[in-house]
């Protein structure tokens, strides 16, 4: 029996959320006295994983898995989960993982809990705490499969370094050729940080008055290395692309820092961003509901505050 973590990578580099998943797996392996096996797929740097405590790394190199397709990834991971006799699988809650994990759960006949926010409350039975009602509440879920899968919400458990000397086994296969769904093209905004991967998200609302003012958001975001996001009306009006819409009906945000500028803080907006650790609001209306949930706030005009903040941060960063 083993704890098996899938460490997701993009263009050969691990995502930060993968280190969090491995850290989670390590804690779980210690508590349940099992080995920690980590799978990587087409990673160029499997050795890096040794910083987070695995006992064994399976580094899969497979040309058929260079492009992500849910079915092939589910097929590959289920095959190795069976080989390693995994009792619990740990994945991060990235968009790709969320896509293939239901397929994987059926293949392994496994229990599945997504959006898990802390280490298990109990190992036997396996009880985890997960976020529900779009971050308005948590629930304790008991997983009852003979195999179970946990998807860890980003930035909830944290990355914990722990050196180990894992056996690194390179597996060369080219076995996954399900083509029920084929990728024809990918249209990605290059060079910007995606909301899902971002440590910091800078988000703008209707208070910014129009798309021509978005340089304020973009300037602050690029100074911080942050992703840009927006409230729903902003994307509905076409000021910003739909992919930036966050909230209950948009993308979920679980960043370390969320900066809301000219956003009132409607319940549907807050539901989607509440999993963020630290929230900052900049709004000229002291009555805006966002102030009730924020950690830090500035009551002021965004057109005045944001350029100053960006300048000061630039100076701070260059120190």
């Amino acid at each position, binding site marked *: 029996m083993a704890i098996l973590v899938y460490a997701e990578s993009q263009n050969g580099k691990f995502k930060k959320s993968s280190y969090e998943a491995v850290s989670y797996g390590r804690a779980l392996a210690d508590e349940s006295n099992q080995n920690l096996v980590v799978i990587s797929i087409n990673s160029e740097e499997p050795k890096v994983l040794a910083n987070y405590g695995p006992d064994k790394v399976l580094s899969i190199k497979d040309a058929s898995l260079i492009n992500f397709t849910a079915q092939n990834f589910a097929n590959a991971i289920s095959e190795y989960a069976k080989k390693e006799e995994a009792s619990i699988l740990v994945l991060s809650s990235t968009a790709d993982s969320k896509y293939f994990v239901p397929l994987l759960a059926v293949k392994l006949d496994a229990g599945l809990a997504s959006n898990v926010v802390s280490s298990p409350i109990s190992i036997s039975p396996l009880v985890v705490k997960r976020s529900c*009602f779009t971050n308005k509440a948590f*629930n304790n879920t008991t997983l*009852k499969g003979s195999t179970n899968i946990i998807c860890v919400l980003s930035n909830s458990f944290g990355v914990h370094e722990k050196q180990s000397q894992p056996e690194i086994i390179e597996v060369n296969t080219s076995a996954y050729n399900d083509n*029920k769904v084929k*990728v024809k093209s990918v249209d990605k905004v290059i060079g910007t940080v995606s909301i*899902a991967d971002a440590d910091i998200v800078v988000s703008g609302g209707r208070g910014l008055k129009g798309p021509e003012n978005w340089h304020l958001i973009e300037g602050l975001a690029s100074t911080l290395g942050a992703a840009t996001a927006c409230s729903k009306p902003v994307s509905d009006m076409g000021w910003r692309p*739909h992919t930036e819409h966050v909230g209950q009906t*948009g993308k979920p945000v679980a960043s370390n820092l969320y900066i809301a500028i000219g956003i009132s803080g409607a319940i549907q907006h807050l539901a989607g961003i509440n999993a963020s650790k630290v929230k900052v609001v900049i709004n000229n209306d002291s009555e805006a509901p966002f102030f009730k949930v924020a950690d830090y*706030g500035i009551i002021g*005009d965004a057109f005045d505050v944001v350029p100053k903040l960006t300048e000061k941060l630039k100076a701070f960063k260059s120190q």
Partner: protein
Amino acid sequence: MNVLVCISNVPDTTSKINFIDNDKLFDTNGVQFIINPNDEFGLTRAIWLQQKDQAIVTVVTVGDISCEPILRKCLAIGANKAVRIDYNALDGFAVAEQLKSLCEKESYDLIICGRESIDYNGGMVGGMLAQMLGFSYITNCISIDLNGNEVEAKREIDGGIETLSSSLPIVIGAQKGLVEESDLIIPNMRGIMQARQKPLDVLASVNSSVKSSVDQFEKPPVKGSVKLVDPENIDELISLLHNEAKVI
């Protein structure tokens, strides 16, 4: 063409979330239930297929009798028929197994689920159903075009959009973008009257394997009050974020 839209009955987005029975049960008192928003985008897309290609649109929900008003609403929006599988939906895996039993009896070419429900946010039923049936699966779906059996779909990915090709039968996970909010159909009087005549079948549940249970709820801790920083003293904000919150 036969289209199945899977509908989840969820609390309205503005609902205050409370729990009763020592935090073991969701308090439905005073809560209005709605069609899960992601499912409603999917339903609207299905109705377009009905209008354009004469598709037969069936809506299904897995749940008790309290879910029926939502199914009637779907019929008023335009679905041809509704099915309720009488089962207390507690676990995504079990729900997918219930839906699978329906799909094996009928033959659906296109099955639309919401990307996720806004109550349990599991995001698993569509994918599980696809795998159980051996169908193709595309989630976070923001457009779908059908040409005979061929499917071209777009899906939102982190930081962009992916274009995919596939074929029927397929399960998709719907979200905003598949149709716009302004496209959502508000039932009119005629629709509401017609809905009363349309079939709403209740099916007994099949045996399914429950793989999880929700035992206890908890609300997030009450937030301490916000620390306000003077707009003339932005250095203080930077220092707080760096030294206190340690996020920059």
